[in-house]
């Protein structure tokens, strides 16, 4: 058993729903109790979809367990087929139905429907949402892409043709990434054959084989399918994720090579504003800002590279909740000289952020909460998704426009450079005393992570009884400060004071100093200033 306060991923059948809901002409019959129907609201409320997901739940109850839940399942499949007339169906069980072992695949097969019915085995007690999406997409491709066949050679003068694989319903900015990548491919002169799962019908899967290669945007959902297509139809697939200017340029080079065309027109084109914005003198204050990055592997790796190489930040933490991609994240972390954090335990991530004492957190909605409590600026860069992650405006993460969006996303939570200097200059003025925090953080002053008291920074809604503050986890025993050292600390500009305090305490603890004196404070400053 695992104690879970918040979960980064849903169960694997939610991944299957993300695939089914992204598509048209596909229907999913899920053997599940009524409570599992909550999943509809993920799509209709968080993503604001205008139709119910194409899912029929059997909604069996305790009284059905003594009778015939298998019959109930068969009725549900027949009725869904009759009502929705899908081109294909997927069938499976959620966690509870897995325990009663009704064999949805076998039962559906026995109905002998005139359409492909694809059984899904999604072990709910081992696997999670992204795996479920990947497995579902792979099973659909296997069942619907047709038998191995040699690809006819492209006629001279014909545009190279690719598929785009990976975008799903409820994906983090998938809608806009897809538009951006289509534009990029179009500018290169590459035609798009099939996009799947988002927007595809089962019949389209039969055309996947016509493409020269596959573009894999999200390995979490599409790598298994791409590997199958490579094996079966000899289609190579892209390895580069077009996040950031560097990522996008390498992606352009990679697809151009796969398509046998010249990338120069796109590489020499206008590109992104990020490089100039990053070189603009106002951005010098971004230098070596300490950032903590956590998310799904694709976004965590991509954003860590942007942070380090395109904004000049220092990556002090990098991790993912997606164990399937732990190897890739570890390799990336090594490039930043740190050890990757591979965990799906929100409390571990919280502890790691405290220890790393970053100046900016780039994470999921969970890290946004941790950062808020610690008074650290934060931007959301990865699923799990929140209604805010489906903005009305065009906001891709990928491609050159995605790089522009990332510059804004990563820099706006930090104080503007000039603002920071002015705060330092005028900090003794009544308007700028220590209690006044940057206005964009809700007027709360920067809490120093090592100050001990981690009160819930969020005000509960007015009609909510106050939630008792969680008990702080003391990572290490506290170190005492002498009055004069404490006084001196107060003279340090408040926006760096938290870091000075943490550094000094760490320095003192490592040397087993019982009391921090004036000397210790400056010894520590010299030590960390190297």
């Amino acid at each position: 058993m695992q104690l879970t306060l918040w979960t980064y991923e849903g169960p694997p059948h939610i991944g299957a729903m993300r695939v089914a809901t992204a598509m048209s002409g596909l229907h999913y019959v899920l053997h599940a109790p009524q409570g599992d129907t909550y999943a509809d609201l993920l799509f209709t409320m968080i993503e604001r979809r205008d139709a119910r997901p194409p899912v029929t739940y059997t909604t069996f109850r305790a009284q059905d367990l003594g009778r015939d839940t298998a019959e109930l399942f068969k009725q549900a499949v027949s009725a869904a087929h009759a009502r929705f007339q899908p081109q294909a169906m997927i069938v499976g069980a959620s966690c509870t139905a897995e325990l009663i072992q009704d064999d949805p695949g076998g039962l559906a097969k026995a109905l002998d429907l005139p359409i492909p019915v694809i059984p899904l085995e999604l072990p709910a007690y081992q696997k999670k949402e992204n795996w479920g999406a990947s497995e579902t997409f792979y099973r659909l491709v296997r069942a619907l892409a047709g038998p191995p066949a040699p690809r006819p050679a492209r006629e001279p003068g014909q545009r190279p043709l690719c598929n785009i694989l990976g975008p799903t319903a409820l994906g983090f900015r998938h809608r806009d990434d897809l538009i951006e990548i289509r534009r990029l491919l179009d500018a290169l002169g590459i035609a798009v054959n099939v996009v799947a799962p988002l927007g595809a019908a089962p019949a389209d899967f039969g055309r996947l084989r016509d493409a020269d290669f596959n573009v894999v945007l999200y390995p979490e959902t599409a790598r298994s399918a791409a590997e199958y297509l490579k094996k079966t139809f000899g289609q190579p697939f892209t390895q580069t994720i077009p996040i950031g200017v560097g990522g996008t340029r390498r992606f352009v080079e990679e697809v151009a090579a796969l398509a046998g065309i010249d990338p120069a027109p796109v590489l020499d084109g206008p590109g992104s504003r990020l490089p100039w914005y990053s070189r603009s003198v106002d951005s010098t204050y971004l230098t070596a800002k300490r950032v903590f990055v956590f998310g799904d592997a694709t976004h965590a790796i991509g954003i860590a590279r942007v942070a380090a190489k395109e904004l000049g930040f220092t990556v002090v933490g990098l991790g993912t909740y997606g164990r399937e991609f732990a190897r890739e994240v570890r390799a990336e972390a090594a490039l930043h000289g740190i050890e990757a954090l591979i965990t799906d335990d929100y409390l571990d991530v919280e502890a790691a952020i405290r220890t790393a004492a970053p100046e900016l957190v780039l994470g999921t909605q969970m890290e946004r909460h941790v950062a808020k409590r610690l008074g650290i600026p934060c931007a959301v860069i990865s699923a799990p998704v929140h209604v805010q992650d489906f903005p009305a405006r065009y906001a891709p993460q990928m491609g050159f426009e995605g790089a522009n969006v990332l510059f804004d996303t990563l820099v706006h939570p930090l104080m503007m450079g000039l603002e920071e200097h002015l705060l330092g200059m005028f900090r003794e003025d009544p308007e700028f005393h220590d209690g006044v925090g940057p206005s964009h953080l809700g007027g709360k002053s920067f809490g120093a992570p090592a100050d001990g008291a981690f009160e819930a920074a969020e005000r509960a809604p007015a009609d909510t009884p106050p939630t008792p503050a969680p008990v702080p986890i003391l990572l290490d025993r506290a170190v005492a400060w002498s009055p004069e050292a404490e006084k001196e600390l107060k003279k340090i500009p408040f926006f760096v004071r938290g870091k000075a305090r943490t550094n000094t305490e760490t320095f003192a603890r490592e040397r087993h100093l019982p009391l921090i004196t004036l000397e210790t404070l400056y010894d520590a400053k010299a030590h960390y200033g190297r």
Partner: protein
Amino acid sequence: MNAPLSHSPGCGGIDLHQEHGQRAVFCGLTGIVWLHRKIQDAFFLVVGSRTCAHLIQSAAGVMIFAEPRFATAIIDERDLAGLADANEELDRVVTRLIERRPDIKLLFLVGSCPSEVIKLDLSRAAQRLSSRLNPVRVLNYSGSGIETTFTQGEDACLAALVPDLPREAEAAAPSLLVVGALADVVEDQFLRMFSAMGIADVRFLPARRANAMPAIGRNTRYLLAQPFLTDTARALEERGARRLAAPFPLGAEGTTSWLRAAAEAFGVSEEAFDRATAPGRARAETALAPHREKLGGKRVFFFPDSQLEVPLARFLARELGAELVEVGTPYLHRGHLAAEIELLPAGTRVTEGQSLDDQMDRCRAARPDLTVCGLGLANPLEAEGLSTKWSIELLFTPVQGYEQAGDLAELFVRPLRRRALLEV
């Protein structure tokens, strides 16, 4: 799915149908979202699957609490394969939890679909942990979706509290118990109202703190504040308490009848009752009047969700002049709702149970002016041009009593007003 629709005549003057098929409702675990806010030193630990954790997170929706007082002990394959002793695992998880949160005085182990199917005995676990974690009390109930629908989770939770409630002395004077989670502000209004009538000893279940739960005994008279408390009522009866039959305190009429049931049981004079309730009734009337214009004659369709549908429909029809197209409810408690059914317009179509696709077809065909439904259905119906009200908001918002009658009406008016405002 097959949807045998049976017609059951003879339940008051209503046109009652029973429907079987796909349901689109939350399970009882959802109640944790409001119960943990009501009992301020209680923690709710779901023993279930990742789906359970994901459900509560999604139903709590906005993830508003940095560290909530609910969590899930996720059963994994080691527990299922018997490689790990489920009880030892549970003890380990609970120990970690209590160490982390010493402010917790009451811990609920909440059963789920998977824990029910594998027959994990949470009542024994609760007993064992209660003696080990003393003074923290550990209770258990099931919020599983194979046994409970949405608000029935609150029923199961309160029913679990009842055997543990202190015993009232045999000779104690009669006391009034109000049963069902209400917003604190509503409780305080009712307290003042009862006090003005001369009923001084009024208690609430659940109390706001674990150590302040009400004592009960043979002289306890209780009023249900919510229509979904079947098991809680049964448990209270077993402890000798007696129910005061009444409609529910939604709208001015419901509130008056509800208060009157207590007044009659406690020998309050008609004069004292009028004096105590007149200002509230007058204010409710003032607050309701402007909404009556907007809802009068509007056709309303209820999908089954919270079991509040029948009292809400009664309020809309009788106090606001709305027309009821269909009143869906997951379950109709004929006894507790007898007074409500009596008040519904004759011939009102009430559907107990659900066959989702068929019901959506009926809703589309009827094209009601307002559809009250769960979160999963609201946007799809809006996209088809139907105005909707999410039913879950009726549980999260204080809606009972005179002072909230106007707010309750406004919840139904808002979607219509909004639609009229938008020009895009």
